[in-house]
């Protein structure tokens, strides 16, 4: 089951969706007023980045980079494992940052009774 067929269509879909996700995420983060919606936007940006990172590592007709017993002697062309390792770390860091951000949102709500970013402006000038 490999993505052999017409490559340029797949380029458009994978790169296209990744960049679309990044842009939609950024739009949400920059325009929406609710803190949670901003964080949703940021997590969508993270997903877009991760998709982009993995799709960069893809190789036409390559299999997963695992030398399972079935495939160990045939040594087929393998997909690039390095971006996968990076994405693994990036996903977990993305989650950690989102968790801390949401904790901050709870704390802000406790104090300001609102999650609207325009109303949380004690520190200015």
């Amino acid at each position, binding site marked *: 089951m490999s993505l052999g067929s017409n490559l340029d269509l797949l380029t458009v879909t994978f790169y296209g969706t990744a960049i679309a996700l990044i842009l939609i995420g950024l739009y949400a983060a920059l325009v929406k007023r609710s803190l949670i919606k901003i964080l949703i936007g940021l997590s969508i940006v993270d997903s877009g980045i991760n998709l982009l990172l993995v799709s960069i590592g893809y190789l036409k007709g390559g299999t997963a980079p695992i030398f399972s017993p079935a495939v160990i002697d045939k040594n087929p062309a393998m997909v690039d494992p390095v971006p996968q390792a990076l994405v693994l770390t990036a996903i977990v860091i993305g989650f950690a940052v989102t968790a801390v951000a949401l904790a901050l949102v709870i704390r802000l709500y406790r*104090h300001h009774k609102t999650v609207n970013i325009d109303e949380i402006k004690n520190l200015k*000038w």
Partner: protein
Amino acid sequence: MVGSPVQLIAIPLFAAFLIPLLGKAWKELVRITPGVVILYLLYLSVDLLNYTIEHGRVVEVIAGWTPPWGIDLVFSPFSGFLATLMLFMGLLVWIYSYRYQTFEDYDDYEPTLKYYLLLMMMITASVGVVLTGDIFNLFVFIEILGITAYGLTAYYRHRDGAEASFKYLFIGSLSSTFLLLAIMIIYSQLGTLNMADIAVKAHELKPVYKITALVLFLVAFGIEAEMFPLNGWAPDAYSQAPAPVGAAFAGIVVKAGLYTVIRLIYTLFEVGGTYEYLIVMGLITMFFAEFAAFSQTKLKRMLAYSSIGQMGLVLVAFGIGKEEGVYAALFLMFNHAIIKSLLFMSGSYLVYKSKNKYISELNGVGKMMPVTSFLFALGAFAIVGFPPFAGFWSKLAVLTAAADSGMLLIIALILSISLIEVIYYLRVVNRIYFVKRDTDLGITKPTPQAMFSMLVLGAIILIVGFYPDVITGVLHKASATLLDKGSYINDVLSLSQTIN
């Protein structure tokens, strides 16, 4: 044989996992172990620094795989100097925050454990950022630095810590997004993540990739280094964090951010126009930060803006670029770390009781807290560059560097900025000593250990002021190492031939 640089990161990690257990055995251990660890690391890094000054770089390989394949840590006089400076400041911040009064009001086991853990890890993360030789590893260390900074900024309940921390997190996550995009472009084209390898292969990059990657890197690292349009979060984070953390921000965290920009421009990419970019951005940052600092009414926010302004000056010095430029920049970094931390430490004791730290609440505190206000005034006189103190030599170095490369306009701009600095710092000193006390705010005497760390900083200012040759040797060696990129590359990449 001198210890290996990886201990500078492995041992604090080991201790970080150990501390929760130690805490169960004896509560006080939670406060003591970070200090002991940082002290040992400081000893180690000073020892390493002396070694590298004689014998050149120490490149430490991790997991046995030599640089282009595995991750490597580079302990050169340049990164070593920064690491030692950070560890020294970390030690002083730890001493300052040992049994710090506000923490006592929180005298619960939970928050103190978390504070000391996050503080130690913030220092280790900055040392990690400075030492690592791999861009993805740099990304991970910047994230650790970020997470600890978010946690520490939001430490106090009674202040707007959460708001400042959220702003820092929001902009920080944007910075990590751009960083990932840039690493992606670099990896897809060059197939390697090692800095020396990238530096070698950078010329193979097609212009479109190189420029986009450079821009993404500049914006991501610009956020960490608090350049002008990207540093909205910085004043809030500095002013809302607890006093020791504010001193740590000024002394350590912003140095790591600045290091990333410098490593990018001096080693990673040889792109024309980056030095002018540094000068222009440095000047803009200096202008806006100093203008904002001038019209501040709150003390810690004023110190925050002034710290950003000083960083702008360091950027300009790095932008000037030749041997004197880098030497001046490093001298400025050293002075800024020492003096700004002293100002944060002593300043926050002067306005300790006031809720939002107005400068007007400083009136006449000189008589009540003679030593702390003397130290604050000493810091103010030093940062402004009055001669017998440390700040003068670094300002002179920057100006001579600018004059040598014939940038008269830049000298004029730097001097007019320091004119503004003179006014708003001496305005505060005026209030401390020469205006009668009109508020009924009580005062808090600093704890003995807080006084100790402040006095150490004050002594350093005087020593470096009267006899700057104490550290100029190290600075010259460090600036020489940064400048010759060739020796960095073949030091790191030559290892691959020897080991396997």
